[in-house]
Each structure stands twice: as structure tokens, then as C-alpha cells.
């Protein structure tokens, strides 16, 4: 079981590292999708079936499309990143931001009580229980997320639906 975890971790880290090092934005985006799929594999390993499939459905299916479309629509012509290494200010800022995020994550991981045990063969929480939890105690959170997404969707429609003058023949 530990071997499988190691392989999954290597795949995730390898894909993420390759995504950062690649000079081709599309390759980076696709490698990122690979890393997300690896995270889904990790959820499966941990016995969280529902979360794993939701991860695939949302990240590999939807978020990947958003990333790829954003890359395609914002970049004209060349898709390899033309960022130079020369700017010292940029490097310092990057290290500060990365260090801050990293410190926050490490602090959160160290601060949370980790219950280390080997995963059970069957999921400990069935889909039905997750559904009951989402509809019961966590219903407000679900509603808030729904409202938030609706607002985002409406905003996107407002931004995108600019009335353009009809082009005449």
C-alpha cells in the first residue's frame, strides 16, 4: 500500500515540477491536469471514492478547460512563455509570495491533528452519508457556494454579452 502511495506522490510531484519548468504554456497546463488526476488517484488510495471522482469531474473535466481556454484566448501566436530571468525584483517578489504560501500551508498541516492509519479497503463514508451531511448540517455552506457560483456566472454573462453593432453586408 505504501508503494502505491509513493508512486502516486512521485507522479503528482513530477507532473507539477515539469509543469513549472516547461517553457510551453499548453504543455504546462496539460501537465497540471496530470497532477490533478494524480491527486484524484491519491483520494482513491485513501478510500475517498466520491471525492476522487468529483475531483476528476471538476478539475480534469471543467477547470482544465477554463485554464486551456484562458491560455488560448489571452496569448496571440506564440504559446511559449517569453518571460526572462533578468528581473531581480520579480525574483525576490516571487520568493516572498511562494515562501508566504508555503509557510501558511506548512503551518496549517503542522497545526492540524493528523490521524495516520492505513486506508480501509471499503470507503468509510458512503455516498449516501455524504449526501445526508450536505443536505443537513452543511446545507448553509452548500447554499452559499451555490449563490457565489451563480453570481460569478451572472457576472461572466454581463461581461461577455456586450452589445456589438450588427455588421452590415
Amino acid at each position, binding site marked *: 500500500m505504501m508503494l502505491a502511495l509513493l508512486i502516486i506522490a512521485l507522479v503528482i510531484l513530477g507532473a507539477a515540477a515539469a509543469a513549472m519548468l516547461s517553457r510551453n504554456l499548453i504543455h504546462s497546463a496539460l501537465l497540471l491536469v496530470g497532477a490533478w488526476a494524480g491527486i484524484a488517484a491519491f483520494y482513491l488510495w485513501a478510500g475517498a471514492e466520491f471525492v476522487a471522482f468529483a475531483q476528476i*469531474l471538476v478539475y480534469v473535466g471543467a477547470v482544465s478547460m477554463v485554464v486551456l481556454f484562458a491560455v488560448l484566448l489571452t496569448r496571440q501566436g506564440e504559446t511559449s512563455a517569453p518571460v526572462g530571468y533578468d528581473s531581480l525584483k520579480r525574483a525576490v517578489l516571487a520568493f516572498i509570495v511562494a515562501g508566504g504560501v508555503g509557510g501558511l500551508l506548512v503551518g496549517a498541516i503542522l497545526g492540524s491533528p493528523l490521524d495516520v492509519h492505513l486506508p480501509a479497503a471499503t*470507503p468509510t463514508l458512503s455516498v449516501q452519508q455524504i449526501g445526508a451531511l450536505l443536505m443537513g448540517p452543511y446545507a448553509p455552506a452548500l447554499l452559499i457556494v451555490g449563490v457565489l457560483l451563480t453570481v460569478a456566472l451572472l457576472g461572466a454573462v454581463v461581461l461577455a454579452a456586450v452589445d456589438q453593432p450588427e455588421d452590415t453586408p
Partner: protein
Amino acid sequence: MSLETLPLIVRDWIVALFPDVLQWLVHHLLSIAVILTVFGLFFAFTTIAERKLLGRLQNRLGPNRAGLPKLSILPFHLKHKLWGLSQPFADAVKALTKEDVVPDAADKVLHFLAPVVIVAFSLLGFAVLPFGRHLIPVELDAGLLYFFAAGTATELAIFMAGWGSRNKYSLLAAMRALAQLISYELPLILSVVPVVLVVGTLSLPDIAVAQSGWTFGVLPHWHVFTPWGFAGFLIFLVAALAESNRSPFDLPEAESELIAGHLTEYSGFKYALFFMAEYFGLTALSGLGVTIFLGGWQAPFAFLEFIPSYLWFMMKLAGMIVFFIWIRGTLLRLRIDQLTRLSWQFLVPLALLNLANAAFWALTAGWSGPLVFVRWAVSAAIVVVPFLILGRRLSGDRAPRTYRYAS
């Protein structure tokens, strides 16, 4: 019943031949091999059935020339052409021996990966379909979710094919194909959710079992025979057609106007792989439709239950495929604006209403006596009235058609 469990007995017998350590591996490899063989052959004969049936629909003969090669081991030469049934194998040899041309400017890695990814992921869906009472390759608590998760990667593969070809027509066509896939994923999933609501599980074998039994001994308890199930099944059929790029929704590769879209720069076996993936996707979606709406492996009548359940499943599957071929021979191709409008303005609202319909059905499960008729009437009204109103409104201001650049 021995015929029912025969595949299991054969499997256990083969698995027992191997040492204990390897048994779980052999067990799963055997399932994979059987799925690949059965559905590979099913794909081959779907292509010949499609060509023959389309031929008949267009008043021609279809392929009937390919016979058997002269087999030197046979003492006689088989003269009969077998109605051209060996055509798919001739096609396979042709596709395998064709030259593989890759454009000079193409992104070689993505260009190569796209057909591999699309075939691999289109096969994954078969893992959770209950092919028979005991024939379930993988039993998952969230099988339905797995099925849709496995299907999402095909979008990535289409993007890889379009972008990796380094051809603007490929890229544009891939974008159109993605717009279509994303538009129709919503009605597809929304058409399935009512079943989950009523049955209360995401497990496909349980959904199939929930449809057993008959009303008055004649009407099977299949979901398609309820008002919400019928509406859901129709929405599912349309969305499945669009998701698998079938006519009348085959715009991404419209052969008469678009030189095959994102497949433009593919040749030889890679092209064949895309077609394989398309048919696998269609077969898997049909299998899902059979499981969810058409009673899965259940027999339609009690006296027909002596036929093994997996044969019933395959018969229903073949029926669905023939229906899809018939649609292809009948309907005309849509424009891209008609296609997206059909999805967002028609199918999605109807599917959402159908969800409310299913909720009503689930809440009134306890009604009996004359109230049963009220239940059916209300449910049917929720299906029919919005369909008529929306249909009228959508087609009302669209005719007669005006052209901006032509008269």
C-alpha cells in the same frame, strides 16, 4: 440457473489455475480482456451494421463484397461471401497498413497522445456497467459518478488533437467540438439525476435492481415507463447523440463541409483510433441508458426470464445502437447556433423541470387508489406542458429564416 452463472464459473475455473498470489491480478485482467474482446468485436460489427443499414435507408446495398480469404488449411474454398460480414476486418487491415503522416510543425507529443488518451478513457466507462445479474466488472458505490468522470477526459483529448495538429482549421473545429461537448454535458447529467433522486443510490447495479417487477404482470417497472423517466430518457438520447458526435450533431467532423474537423491532420491507424473511441463512447452511453432507463439486464416479461440476463442487456444495447443508426439515416445536420440553442434554451430547462417532476414522484410514492391516477396525470402534465410551450416559443420567431450574407 446454470446459464446465468456460466461466465462466472468459467472465470473462477481459469483463476483457480493460477497460484494464490496472482489470483486477484488474473481476476481483474480477465475482466479487462473480456470487455476488450466483446466490445472490440461489438465495435467491428457496429460499423458493418451501420454501413449496411445506412445503405438500406438510402436504397443501396451497402458493403457486401468482402469475403473470406482463401484459407489453405481448409480442404475446400468457401465461395460464399457471408454477406460481406468480414468487411470490418478488411477495414482494420487497411487502417493498420496505411501510412502515418504527422505534420512537420505539429506538437509531436500531443499529436501522438490524443488518440491514445481518447481510446483509453472511452473504454474506462465500461468498467462499472452491470452487464448481467452477476456480471459487474467493478462494483462501485459511486459508479454513476465514475462513469461521468471517465468521460470528461475525452474533451482534453479533443483539445490535444486540435492544438497538437498546428492547423488553424483543426484548432477551430476542436473549439467547436468542445463547445458542443460542454453544452451537452449539462443536459446529459441532468437527465440522469432524477433517477438518482428516485432510486436513492449512485450505484449502477442497484439502479438496475430497482427496476425489477411488473405492474399487473405486464408493465415492467422500468424508469422509461414513468412520465419523468420517459422525458429523462428522451433528453438523455438527444444529449448522448450530441456527446458522441453522432448525426444530427456531427458538426465537429461534418464530412461534407469541414474536412473532418480536429481529425484533419490524422491518418492511418490514429484516425481509426478516434473512430473507435467514438463508437466506444456511444456504446458505453447506450449501456448507461439501458441500465438507467430500460431496466438494465431485466427481461421485459416474466416468462422470458429463462434467457440469461447478459443476453437481455446486449439485446437492448444493440437496439439502442440500431436506433442511433436509424436517426443518422433520417435527420439532417444542425447548425452550430441551433445546436447550442437546443441545449441551453430547451433541454436544460426541461431537464431541470424533470428533476422537480421526479421529486414530486418520489414524494407521492405512498399514494394509492384513485390518487395513483392523479399522480400520473400531474407528472405527465409537468412533462408535456413545458415541452409544448418551450417548443412553440423557440420555433416561433425563427421562421422564415433570413440570411445576412445571402438572399
